[in-house]
């Protein structure tokens, strides 16, 4: 569906090249820096206010000050003791993790096969998988729902996960990256007597680790934040994922804004922490996946 611009992979590296942190010299550069800094602060304001409000006492919630006067974790205690958020969090972790592992295995196996094997039907399989990029998820939810209903998959982990276990995006991404694995390596491994499964796993996979990491980030984030399909397929509160649960929680009568902000923070902080730890790595992955996928 999306055409990748022909930007060499080097540009992902160039983006992260560490250059001396020269201080701005002239007025123009100082002004440019200041404006970008203010813009950047405004960008993170919604996140900052979400976290700040989750740490405020009810009487202070509607003050516009960013730093709580007396920070409290009372809201977190309340929300977690309620129990529901705990389960939604666990559900989301399980679903996002299993889906990510499945995508890493299957997308790379299919990408590898389409890239390194010559066999009848190869072009057809490739075009067929690629063409699914054109089909929007929204068109499939009704048939998926009917399918889940007739097989009893509604309101189960499998029901939430099955549509995303493999993606054409991931397959295409991995195929692109396997192009860079030299055929000689594979030939050599064959001569050494490894079977094709072993060659894929022990020779080819380690060489595309950066791509696997990029794919893992995209799939995990996508499933962690997925809303439409989990909303449709789940109906008992215990099976909700975090976004579905938060949506219903916010909609309850008389629920206080600081508690909604706490729920929102619980659903956002994990991905933010992961990002802050693996920042360079994630940005490189996003560029690679964005440009190659």
């Amino acid at each position, binding site marked *: 569906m999306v055409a990748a611009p022909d930007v060499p992979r080097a540009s992902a590296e160039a983006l992260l090249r560490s250059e001396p942190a020269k201080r701005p010299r002239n007025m123009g550069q100082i002004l440019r820096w200041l404006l*970008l800094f203010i813009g950047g602060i405004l960008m993170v304001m919604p996140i900052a*206010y979400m976290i700040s409000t989750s740490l405020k006492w009810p009487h202070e919630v509607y003050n516009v000050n960013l730093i709580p006067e007396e920070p409290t974790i009372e809201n977190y205690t309340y929300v977690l003791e309620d129990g529901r958020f705990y389960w939604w969090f666990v559900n989301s972790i399980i679903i996002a993790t299993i889906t990510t592992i499945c995508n890493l295995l299957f997308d790379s196996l299919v990408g590898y096969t389409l890239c390194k094997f010559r066999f009848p039907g190869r072009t057809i399989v490739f075009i067929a998988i690629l063409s699914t990029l054109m089909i929007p998820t929204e068109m499939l939810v009704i048939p998926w729902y009917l399918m889940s209903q007739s097989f009893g998959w509604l309101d189960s982990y499998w029901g939430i996960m099955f549509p995303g276990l493999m993606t054409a995006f991931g397959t295409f991404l991995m195929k692109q990256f396997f192009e860079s694995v030299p055929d000689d390596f594979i030939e050599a491994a064959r001569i050494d007597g490894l079977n094709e499964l072993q060659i894929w796993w022990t020779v080819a996979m380690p060489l595309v680790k950066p791509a696997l990491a990029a794919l893992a980030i995209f799939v995990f984030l996508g499933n962690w934040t997925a809303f439409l399909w989990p909303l449709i397929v789940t109906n008992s509160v215990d099976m909700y994922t975090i976004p579905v649960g938060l949506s219903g929680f916010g909609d309850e009568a008389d629920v206080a804004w600081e508690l909604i902000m706490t729920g929102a923070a619980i659903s*956002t902080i994990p991905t933010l922490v992961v990002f802050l730890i693996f920042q360079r790595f994630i940005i490189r992955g*996003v560029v690679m996946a964005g440009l190659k996928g």
Partner: protein
Amino acid sequence: MYRNLTIRQKQIVWAWAFLAIPVLFYTVIRFYPTGNAILISFQDWNLLGDRTWAGLENYEKLWNDPVFWKVFQNTFVYLLLGTPISLVLSFVIAYHLDKLRFMHGFLRMLYFLPFMTSAVAMAWVWRWFYQDVPIGLFNNILASFGIPQIKFLQSTTNALPAVLAPAVWAGLGFQVIIFMAGLRAIPQSYYEAAKIDGVGWFTVLTQITIPLLRPTIVFIVVFSSIGFLRIFDHVFNMTTNNPGGPLNATKPLVLMIYDTAFNGFDMGYAAAQTVVLFTILLIVSLIQLRLLRSN
């Protein structure tokens, strides 16, 4: 038996062994449902009763449904406001950020952070910002300057831009990063040559930078267009009391599909709407890919 095969035959066996499960998956989970959705769009079915053949009835109903035309219009307003705004903003940010070295990584992080958030969580945060005094942040700030209050989500004119804002905000960081990668890919020698010729910055921007960024621009336009045409999470969560309201002023096509299928259980009608969405997405991406190919 396997031992007697030639190397080439063994390869074919392995390839199909690797592809067996994925091919089954794509057939059952992607292709069959696609066909099924198209089929259901020609049927009349409320999930409980019989499925009866309806011919083009659902499409005729859609054509004559004033709500559909309102939704159709909203969907394109999301696209036509969201895509240019996020394109220009992200280009301006990336262009200037690319020229700075001081605390570059920190600034980049600030712009990218919203991309890592969940749409549902942030929809609720923004929804809180938009509330009236004394609750909402925006109106509290306006009030402290003595500026009259603004109705954000309750107004039929303001609600759509108010819902769009967090969607643009969340996607900006991704586009900035892609633009910066595109900018870094332009060979420095072009700029050096321009410098020697004494060309001004504006000419450099319009004659070198933007033309050479064309593939990146097309990628971002296609990517964000598809996103805005499929907007759902933000709208649903910011208007849960009256999804798509007030008076359908914010309702996009995906929300109408969800409503028709899972609140109204009119599966045939909802399926027809999904076929329309599919067609719109197809046409928009084909037009844009065509633009990429020309020149």
